[in-house]
């Protein structure tokens, strides 16, 4: 069969094992194309996602520009930034959110909440903090920002939904709200701070570390185009919230099941090393919480012994590759925090990706030292209060377009009812919000 015939008959090449996947995503012949990510080359309305949401985002650049912009953004996850985020933001915010949501017991005497909502609120604040949004101590603004989440996700991920007209209507409205009510006020506040620096009234070091600081200071020339700054903010927003929420909810789901089946390990419920292993297992099995990422072959190439032609769409099946028994053992598809670390790979496999586009948030999740991450500390706090899935209510998952790569347990939780078996309500209101210097 001629190569062209292969492409015509099967325009998608699936990459679902670790060696091929790593070689593919690191290849200079493979691009992270916004048009392919959004399926714009086959869906008439896919260009709405490209033109309004993702084109120009740092993750949809390649080569030297991507290296330059990624290096700049690494500033946001340096050790001192991670410490600040964890100690001064994540931990006090968790305390405040728990005390608000668990103030009253239900009639059966149990303390309940929706873990998705709890994590949403925490990570909305984290995303806002990383971007540099202002006025986020106000619960009204926190809820306004949270209300925008589904629309922004829809704009970026419309290709995974059937009713795209409705998704795009909601997405464009959400983007307008994000820009007018959050992005522009933050931009203006940072501009004013830089004006104060010019006037000698403050130093640049006093300006809070954030994406907005990089944008307003034109730390990279691309930020001359304000739309690029908005799209980078959308990317931080989506990843800080969407992926984070799913990672912690899945981690509670997996770890609670493990404790049920291995009660001898319950003594480790607040052990950071154990919980880090649990987080890494969840990441290995389920990240990036969709079945595949999309890349584009720029040139004719060979992947795993098979010919791929220029322009062919590549589906990078990370969860499937991370379940390879040849790499992770016979029980590779199961959650096992005591799994041996495979030679040459981290415990999370390629769950954070590989190559230039590997996840910027890895160091937030796992910490600078690999076992003090903000997400894991969040889990430690939940397990210290005896979090378990609510036996009286089943979680709801998002209905998305199905594809042949789908893996049954890689789902998006829309809610996840939990019970806290070891919670004592606080009598004094906790002050846990984190105030930026603006």
């Amino acid at each position, binding site marked *: 069969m001629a190569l062209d015939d292969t492409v015509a008959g099967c325009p998608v090449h699936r990459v679902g094992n670790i060696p091929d996947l790593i070689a593919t995503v*690191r290849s200079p012949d493979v691009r992270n194309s916004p048009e392919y990510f959004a399926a714009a080359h086959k869906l008439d309305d896919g260009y709405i996602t490209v033109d309004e949401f993702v084109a120009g985002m740092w993750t949809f650049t390649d080569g030297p520009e991507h*290296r330059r912009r*990624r*290096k700049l953004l*690494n500033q946001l*996850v*340096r*050790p001192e930034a991670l410490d600040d985020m964890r100690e001064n933001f994540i931990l006090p915010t968790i305390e405040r959110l728990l005390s608000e949501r668990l103030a009253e017991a239900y009639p059966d005497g149990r303390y309940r909440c929706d873990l998705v909502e709890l994590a949403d609120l925490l990570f909305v604040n984290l995303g806002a903090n990383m971007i540099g949004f202002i006025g986020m101590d106000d619960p009204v603004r926190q809820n306004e920002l949270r209300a925008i989440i589904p629309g922004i996700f829809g704009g970026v991920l419309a290709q995974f939904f059937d009713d795209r007209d409705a998704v795009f209507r909601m997405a464009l409205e959400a983007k307008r709200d994000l820009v007018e009510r959050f992005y522009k006020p933050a931009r203006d506040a940072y501009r004013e701070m830089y004006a104060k620096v010019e006037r000698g009234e403050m130093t640049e070091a006093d300006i809070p570390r954030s994406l907005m600081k990089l944008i307003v200071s034109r730390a990279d020339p691309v930020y001359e185009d304000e739309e690029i700054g908005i799209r980078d903010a959308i990317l931080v927003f989506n990843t800080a919230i969407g992926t984070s929420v799913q990672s912690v909810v899945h981690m509670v789901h997996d770890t609670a099941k493990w404790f049920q089946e291995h009660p001898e390990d319950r003594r480790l419920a607040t052990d950071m090393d154990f919980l880090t292993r649990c987080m890494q297992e969840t990441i290995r099995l389920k990240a990036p919480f969709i079945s595949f990422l999309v890349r584009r072959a720029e040139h004719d190439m060979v992947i795993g012994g098979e010919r791929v032609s220029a322009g062919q769409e590549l589906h990078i099946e990370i969860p499937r590759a991370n379940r390879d028994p040849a790499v992770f053992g016979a029980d590779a598809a199961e959650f096992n925090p005591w799994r041996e670390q495979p030679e040459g790979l*981290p415990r999370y496999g390629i769950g*954070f990706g*590989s*190559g*230039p586009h*590997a996840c910027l948030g*890895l*160091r937030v999740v*796992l*910490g*600078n*030292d*690999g076992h003090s991450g903000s997400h894991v500390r969040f889990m430690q706090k939940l397990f210290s209060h005896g979090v378990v899935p609510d036996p009286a209510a089943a979680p709801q998952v998002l209905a998305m377009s199905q594809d042949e790569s789908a893996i049954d347990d890689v789902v998006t939780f829309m809610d996840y009812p939990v019970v806290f078996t070891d919670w004592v309500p606080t009598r004094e209101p906790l002050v846990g919000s984190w105030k930026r210097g603006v």
Partner: protein
Amino acid sequence: MVRCRVAALDDVKPGELKQVDAGGVPVCLARLESGEVYALSDICSHEEIELSDGDLQGAEVECPAHGSRFDVRTGAVSGWPAEKPVAVYPVAVDGDEVYVEV
């Protein structure tokens, strides 16, 4: 061990990194603000990225791709996602010349 002249001292400013070739070995020179010069493998142990394209902060080099950090004096990991150290090499400054033994 082979002693290689890799750079003039003025080529490596305090607080900066420089990629050099030491007998075919890619080396990252790091000159601390205090003036001391160290040499370590230029290839990050996490993925094959040139550390000399990263940033020097104090005595730590930060990989430009994923933010892994290494102590330039010992090669030890000081920040994930790298889990393995990188090689370090003896450095001698003789007058205005920098030599590395590989």
